[in-house]
């Protein structure tokens, strides 16, 4: 354990925290050197967000001390933490989406004239200066709800810097970003530490840790495991320390052995909610025992395609067939009945009901069917049996969570439940959209294995992901989506990252890229 010293922006000692009887953090320590990027690594539900919320004064710890710049501090609420120069960008953004960017930034810290009248001129200038200094471009007059996720994140960072934060906590900032936005964020983080700021970043992406951080603290199930220099570690050793066992970062696959075609899309046309056509004559087919990876940059019609496949959006023309049966423009219930299951990217919006218990969420699609329902009455015993099976099979934590509100689970554990539930449907076709978003490497390994198992059981899988690595690792066939249509199809191994990236950006297959 290092000594308490002024060289450290933050030092936490013996932090313990329980929710009810469940000990989330147990004697955790943290030492973050001034002017560095410090990563926190841990499995889903390890307690990373909780630890950071304690540092930010949102939760109070049951015991433990926090030292800022070598001085013992009592951060009894966020107001005190902000005054002490701590800023936090939460995993779920804290932005009022009806407000403009500048309103969100000044909220709680307004410059005012007489009678509390807000004067935005001064604040605007101050914010503009920060924007220029760190390259955090965003239009101050737009409403937050009209911004992309990446831009919203910048607003959050601006919010913290505007309040004079010297220490910035970023809780899984990259989980929701596109690869390009991630590059941007890493650049911004670089310019912040160059200016003397300190950053704590929580992320599950080992690559990003290698790329940006100098040191890394590892937490496992609420316990401090180790603090390491990033340059001394590889992705593999980091993963091993975090999970406590060997991890395969790349999955083993049995040889590709496809059966007949189960799913096909022909010449599909779909409009987005603003009436503009975003899926423009897309055709695709998937065979039994095949994982088809759909690569593409966000905003090329993926969202509308997925919604159309699940009958959540009207199809203008074209057909979607599963086992020969046309399903377009029927109902989501019918799609489910035909054997199509989906794992959504935005689980809070589509996958789960946050205020239902874990068990209730587990039977969300099956509550009408036997054995979960008999003559109109729910059968709790069967429901709980099924839930417990999912919990143990997918290692959802905490173990006895079946009656907890799913809201109280960590993001990763919520995702595990969704995946387990969908796979338990034994679908003919599984549509997996960003299935590993927000998951730790251990869980990713598990999800990947599960997907491959499903494929080996002769089911079809449509994998849609913004992460090229994931697509390349899992898919038997890779299709590239660009501007609402398929811009090229490869067998796995036929193309490398560059070829695919070229097509994702709209290049033509027979064009030479040099």
């Amino acid at each position, binding site marked *: 354990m290092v000594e308490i010293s002024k060289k450290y922006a933050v030092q936490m000692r013996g932090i313990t925290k329980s929710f009810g009887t469940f000990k989330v953090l147990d004697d955790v320590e943290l030492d973050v050197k001034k002017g560095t990027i410090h990563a926190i690594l841990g499995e889903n539900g390890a307690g990373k967000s909780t630890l950071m*919320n304690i540092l930010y004064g949102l939760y109070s710890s049951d015991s433990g001390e926090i030292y800022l710049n070598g001085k013992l501090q009592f951060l009894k*609420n966020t107001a005190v933490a902000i005054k002490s120069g701590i800023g936090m960008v939460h995993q779920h953004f804290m932005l*009022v989406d009806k*407000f403009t960017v500048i309103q969100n930034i000044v*909220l*709680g810290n307004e410059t005012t004239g007489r009678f*509390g009248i807000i004067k935005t001129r001064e604040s605007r200038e101050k914010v503009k200066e920060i924007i220029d200094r760190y390259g955090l471009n965003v239009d101050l007059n737009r409403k937050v709800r009209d911004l992309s996720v990446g831009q919203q994140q910048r607003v959050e960072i601006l919010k913290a810097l505007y*309040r004079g934060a010297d220490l910035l906590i970023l809780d899984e900032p990259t989980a929701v970003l596109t690869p390009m936005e991630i590059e941007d964020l890493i650049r911004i983080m670089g310019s912040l530490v160059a200016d003397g700021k300190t950053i704590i970043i929580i992320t599950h992406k080992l690559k990003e840790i290698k790329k940006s951080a100098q040191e890394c603290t590892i937490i496992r199930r609420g316990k401090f495991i180790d603090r390491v220099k990033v340059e001394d570690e590889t992705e593999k050793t980091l993963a091993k320390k975090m999970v406590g066992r060997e991890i395969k970062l790349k999955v083993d696959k049995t040889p590709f052995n496809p059966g007949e075609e189960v799913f096909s899309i022909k010449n599909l046309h779909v409009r987005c909610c603003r009436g503009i056509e975003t899926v423009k004559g897309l055709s695709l087919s998937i065979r039994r025992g095949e994982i088809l990876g759909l690569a593409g940059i966000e905003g090329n019609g993926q969202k509308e395609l997925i919604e159309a496949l699940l009958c959540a959006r009207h199809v203008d023309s074209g057909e979607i067939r599963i086992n020969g049966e046309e399903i377009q423009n029927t109902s989501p219930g019918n799609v489910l009945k035909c054997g199509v299951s989906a794992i959504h990217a935005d689980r809070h919006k589509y996958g789960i009901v946050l205020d239902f218990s874990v068990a209730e969420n587990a039977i969300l699609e099956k509550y009408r069917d036997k054995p979960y329902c008999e003559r109109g009455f729910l059968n709790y015993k069967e429901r709980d049996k099924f839930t417990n099976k999912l919990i143990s099979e997918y290692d959802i934590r905490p173990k006895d969570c079946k009656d907890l509100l799913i809201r109280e689970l960590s993001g990763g554990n919520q995702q595990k439940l969704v995946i387990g539930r969908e796979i338990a449907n034994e679908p003919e076709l599984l549509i997996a959209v960003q299935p590993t978003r927000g998951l730790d490497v251990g869980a990713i390994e598990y999800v990947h294995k599960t997907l491959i198992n499903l494929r080996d059981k002769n089911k079809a899988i449509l994998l849609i992901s913004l992460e090229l690595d994931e697509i390349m690792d899992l898919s038997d066939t890779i299709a590239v989506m660009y501007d609402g249509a398929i811009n090229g199809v490869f067998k796995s191994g036929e193309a490398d990252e560059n070829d695919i990236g070229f097509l994702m950006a709209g290049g033509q297959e027979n064009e030479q890229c040099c």
Partner: protein
Amino acid sequence: MLNSILFAITITLMYSAPLVFAALGGVISEKSGVTNIGIEGMMSIGAFVGASVGYYTGNAWSGLICAGLSGGVLALLHAIASVTFQADQTVSGIAINLIGSGLSMFLSRLFFNGATTTLPVPQKLPKIFGFLGEKYDFINCINLDITVLLSLLAVMFTWFVMYKTKWGLRIRALGEHPAAVDSVGVSVYRARYICVILSGILAGIGGASVTLAIISQFTPTAISGQGFIALAAVIFGKWKPMGAYCACLFFGFAQALVIMLGGGNNAIPTDILAMLPYVMTIIVLMLFVGRSSAPKAAGKPYKKGSR
């Protein structure tokens, strides 16, 4: 002709004033994220306290002030239940309504020899041109209750605070995303307490502007649904002070219609006519309730640290 138009306008304004105060209360409370369906009860207690303090002191103004305070006290109960104890806000609001009307009736019996009607106040609240006397016919036509003017001022003041000041910015944020407000170091609980109490004060004043301006005493039917009409006005007015004001004028006009059409030997029975404001409220609610945009977090208790 001119006189009857002026008469219609005067009556509309007169009947809308109580609604305006109450609706403003509703706007403030809902904007801060607390649903307040207890407005009706807060109006009732305000109506009673206003009339009886006005009677005992002989001063209508002190009646009005005490009415505001009594509404505020009732609102405090609502705040304790719904902010501190995170009770269901609808249930708490219903309880407040029952307490409000029950208590005012009970107190009336206690202080006025078992009557559920208080004795008339010696002096009502003044009219805006009251100082000119009643000499001029024309002035009498446009001689509005002072509450009409006060309610308009209250609207402008609320609008100003809501959209120009830092407190307004925070209140509006509270109703949309309380966790965001909390995370920048502003106490959600304190701000909500203040807003709910303010809404009670306004509702109390609204109640008293029935019993101190329109009529001159408290009767069991003095407040009969105005609180709910005011809530409808909040929705119809899209949770905006100015919008709510216009909506209140509309509902006030409905009440004025009852009076104007009710006189003389009319074909429509007065009982049917008296339903007009309520029927209009229901129609408006049916047309607008789904479509207007309520504050996102209204009605949801905020629990620190939940996610």
